[in-house]
């Protein structure tokens, strides 16, 4: 048994397995798979067709990529808006015709021909856009119809002018340069393509039109409700598609100098294959320029490679068709199951062995009824009062899960008012020297509320650590805070792997996912000071002004961290092996501290924490409601001394009013109780406490 435990501990220390889940949760994971497929295809091709990757070939490929890539970009934009454009091949053909009529037949100058081609593309795109964007017709059928219409136009016009097109060669050096000139070995058409791709990438990922496009494609109704002009966005997507097709057509005409009856036929299939293979989701809302380019390269390499291997032409079509089916199937399954797979793979429980509970604790922590004479404040008025704090005028402040801070007016606390509206769920509260209320708002950051109720942001980000896959510069669950004598704000972030709503899952993991952060108002800098803490929760300043106490909830211990003085930067255990899970810590009178235990340890859960495989299988297989959980239906308050001895324990025996307590605050001889899953605050008289003691005075002198 011991050796297997040691083995488990070793294994979970070094091979945590959490990286898989974290990588899967990244937004660029959708592109990672096509890149992997591209790498495989490149390797396969270089093996099957030796000598394929010469400079000449790469130069050819880049020229083909310029045209095909622009078409892939055009279709990507349309697909991201939630539609599809089957007429892209016919639009391309019409624009080729327009360019050639301009250059060959009419002998117009370069710029005018370009304008003609662009104009044709804009008209084709606008027709699609009006029908689909404004008249709300179905994209598939509409573009199928325009495919036929544009093709028919081409078939009517082309034969009449065919001889004129092939009979004349335009006399434009710019045209030739575009067609087959290069710049230090890189084809000009490719440079044009690269420039356009860069502009579109920046627009799609960083600028508002791109966000609007993604919003409309991803969730049309929500986009509409958010005030985005959905119809215009969709229409413009098709216009953009038309413009890009026109540019591609122009490059094509410059390269070949003529066109045939089969120009653009079947192009929509290969472009669609490229787009889907590249990882753009056909459902809309997801995709990027990178995806389009990877898909285009994949398709080009495949088709070129197949031609190179002298396979019969029909086999090429078959292979491409099979690949398209496979890619669409995979896309459908991936999009549907990504969330499910991620939720299963992401939870990575680890080994956490708590010391066995000692018998001496049984007596100290025996159940009592000290909290039975609790006076209830705000029953039903507040929901989720995680922390309670009182100001110099004895008014009571608490945060609620509706994102507000509610103030109960002294002396009877029957009247209440909303003091500030912030959002999220304000958790830890503390007053600073100037009388401003600082609060950790779960899901948002650390905020300051001035005495007149004005809300301002203190900080919502910290420095990003280099080795973390997750973006830990964001604050996900700031929990409690306290203020050092020089004004520095130390606050805990309970976990970086889960959002506020999923903190339950962090209990299951038992990992050191949390950290201690320091914000210095004098410099405005926020820095992480301690990492790898197991759900750090309550924080309170020690009276030496150089250290603070912080609770690690799932580890059932409180530690002390020195931020100043000779021991600066070190931390050591203050109390360990508590029989429950410590939440907030606050100062008490006579140099003591109050610790709220939000739940009790149970033997079955402690055992489960030593069996990470069991917890992982539990997380995978059964519903979240059914998971084994710490007993948070029963909590208590512990009164500890400056040196960590337990002086007193207060329980609510029946558990009616305060089954689980997350915070206590001593103020003028009373103890105020809060609970994050409760809908009331409690107040109980402490017979032997200092009736004049307030936290303000203890921290800042006469406050």
């Amino acid at each position, binding site marked *: 048994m011991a050796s297997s435990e040691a083995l488990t501990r070793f294994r979970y220390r070094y091979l945590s397995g959490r990286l898989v889940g974290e990588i899967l949760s990244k937004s660029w994971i959708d592109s990672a798979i096509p890149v992997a497929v591209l790498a495989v295809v490149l390797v396969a091709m270089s093996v099957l067709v030796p000598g394929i990757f*010469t400079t000449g070939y790469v130069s050819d490929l880049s020229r083909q990529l310029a045209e095909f890539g622009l078409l892939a970009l055009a279709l990507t934009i349309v697909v991201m808006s939630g539609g599809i454009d089957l007429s892209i091949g016919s639009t391309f053909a019409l624009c080729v015709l327009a360019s050639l009529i301009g250059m060959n037949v009419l002998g117009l100058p370069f710029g005018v021909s370009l304008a003609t081609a662009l104009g044709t593309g804009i008209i084709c795109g606008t027709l699609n856009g009006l029908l689909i964007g404004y008249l709300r017709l179905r994209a598939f059928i509409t573009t199928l119809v325009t495919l036929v219409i544009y093709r028919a136009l081409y078939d009517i016009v082309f034969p009449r002018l065919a001889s004129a097109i092939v009979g004349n060669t335009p006399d434009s050096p710019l045209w030739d340069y575009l067609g087959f000139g290069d710049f230090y070995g890189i084809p000009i058409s490719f440079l044009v393509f690269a420039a356009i791709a860069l502009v579109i990438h920046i627009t799609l990922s960083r600028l508002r039109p791109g966000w609007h496009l993604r919003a409309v494609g991803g969730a049309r109704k929500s986009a509409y409700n958010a005030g985005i002009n959905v119809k215009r966005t969709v229409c413009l997507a098709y216009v953009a598609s038309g413009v890009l097709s026109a540019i591609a057509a122009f490059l094509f005409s410059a390269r070949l100098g003529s066109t045939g*009856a089969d120009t653009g036929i079947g192009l929509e299939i290969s472009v669609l294959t490229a787009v889907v293979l590249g990882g753009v989701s056909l459902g809309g809302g997801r995709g990027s320029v990178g995806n389009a380019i990877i898909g285009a390269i994949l398709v080009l390499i495949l088709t070129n490679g197949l031609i190179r291997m002298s396979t019969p032409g029909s086999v090429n079509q078959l292979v491409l068709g099979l690949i398209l089916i496979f890619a669409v199937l995979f896309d459908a399954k991936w999009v549907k199951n990504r969330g499910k797979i991620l939720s299963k793979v992401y939870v990575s429980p680890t080994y956490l062995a708590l010391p066995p509970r000692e018998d001496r604790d049984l007596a100290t922590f025996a159940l009592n009824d000290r909290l039975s004479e609790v006076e209830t404040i705000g029953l039903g008025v507040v929901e989720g009062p995680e922390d309670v704090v009182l100001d110099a005028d004895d008014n009571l402040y608490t945060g609620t899960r509706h994102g507000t801070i509610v103030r109960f007016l002294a002396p009877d606390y029957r009247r209440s008012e909303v003091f500030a509206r912030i959002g999220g769920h304000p958790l830890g509260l503390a007053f600073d020297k100037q009388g401003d209320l600082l609060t950790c708002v779960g899901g948002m950051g650390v905020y300051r509320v001035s005495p007149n109720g004005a809300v301002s942001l203190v900080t919502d980000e910290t420095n990003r650590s280099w080795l973390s896959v997750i973006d830990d510069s964001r604050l996900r669950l700031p929990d409690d805070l306290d203020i050092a004598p020089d004004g520095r704000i130390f606050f805990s972030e309970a976990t970086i792997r889960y959002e506020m709503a999923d903190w339950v899952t962090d209990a299951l993991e038992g990992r050191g996912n949390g950290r201690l952060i320091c914000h210095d108002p004098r410099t405005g800098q926020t820095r992480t000071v301690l990492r790898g803490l197991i759900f750090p929760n309550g924080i309170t300043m020690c009276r030496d002004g150089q250290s603070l106490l912080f609770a690690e909830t799932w580890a059932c211990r409180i530690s002390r961290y020195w931020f100043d003085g000779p021991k600066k930067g070190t931390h050591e255990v203050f109390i360990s092996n508590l029989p429950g899970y410590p939440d907030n810590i606050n100062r008490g009178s006579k140099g003591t501290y109050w610790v709220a235990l939000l739940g009790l340890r149970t033997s079955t859960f402690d055992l489960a924490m030593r069996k990470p495989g069991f917890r992982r299988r539990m997380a995978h297989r059964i519903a979240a409601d059914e998971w084994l959980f710490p007993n948070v239906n029963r909590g208590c308050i512990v009164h500890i001394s400056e040196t960590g001895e337990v002086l007193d324990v207060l329980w609510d025996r029946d558990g009616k009013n305060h089954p689980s307590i997350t915070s206590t605050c001593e103020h003028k001889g009373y103890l105020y109780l809060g609970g994050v899953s409760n809908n009331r605050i409690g107040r109980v008289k402490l017979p032997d406490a200092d009736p004049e003691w307030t936290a303000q005075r203890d921290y800042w002198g006469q406050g």
Partner: protein
Amino acid sequence: MRLGLFGKALCAAAALALGLSLAHAQDKGLENPRSTTFHTALKGKKVVFVPLSMGFDLTEGWAAQMRKQADRLGYDFEIRDPAWSTDAGTKAIQSLISEKPDLMVIHNPDIQSYARLLKQAQAAGIKIVQINLESNTTTDSYVGADWTEIGRKAAEAIVERCGAGKGISTKVAIDTGVPTAASDVFQLHGIYEVLDAHPEIQVVSQQATEYNPEKARSIMATVLQQHDDLCGAIGIWDNQDTGTASAIKEAGKSDQVFLVTSGGGNQVGCENVKNGLFNLYISYNVPLQGDLLNQEIVRLLMSDATAGEIQTMYFNPLTLITPENVNQRNCWTLDDLK
């Protein structure tokens, strides 16, 4: 021994006879240096054929013959099949330019698409023979039909039948293939050269069928509905004109409409002539073209000239096949060539 004069003459004659007979037994002939060169010079060379597509009579016929010679003379023969796609064809040629085979045989889908590429290929040192469908670029060699000549001959046959007062009317329908292909642009020029001299002939329809017999059939069916006194029709290829012919037959006008078409001269086409679907078939004779192609390949591969230095062409003679001269010589099957 003492020999008299007669004895000396007898000895000399005997010696001569012996010497002659010995000399005859040792005569093994002379090595022909040209034959040796011919059979070894081409070993290891590479020839690539880029057709319009494989899978129909013309290209299969040429390929069969080229392959036979490649086997005979020991060079490498490969086919890159674009399957009717101009785009795939340009890609194939582009990759061939970097692969640098010794010779390419090119079948152009239209006169412009490959033009620049062929120039580049010649500049890269690859010798090029264009077969049957030309491009605007002149390369080392061209072997194939003279489309203008075909057009002229077809138009002349039509004028014979449909000139003023000769046929039921002077209406003629023309169905073309791919408007930018050599078979279209040059043939139309030839047709109109003749028709312009006979202004009474009325061209009631000129449409492109893109080599699709079904399209040809429906076009002809429509034309016949609009002009049921149609006198003649010119089609540019027998494979698509099976459609034209069947439309005419369905309308019951096989005796009325004089259909002229052209093609490689394979057995199927000849059958169609025999049973009256085609009235005149202008054959450019695929087996003959295959032999000419082979000869050009050998000549260019053995030549020391650089690619594109010397340019030749040969427009092979045409055979006009009518029901009277459908025979073994004029008509071929693929098995004959393999």
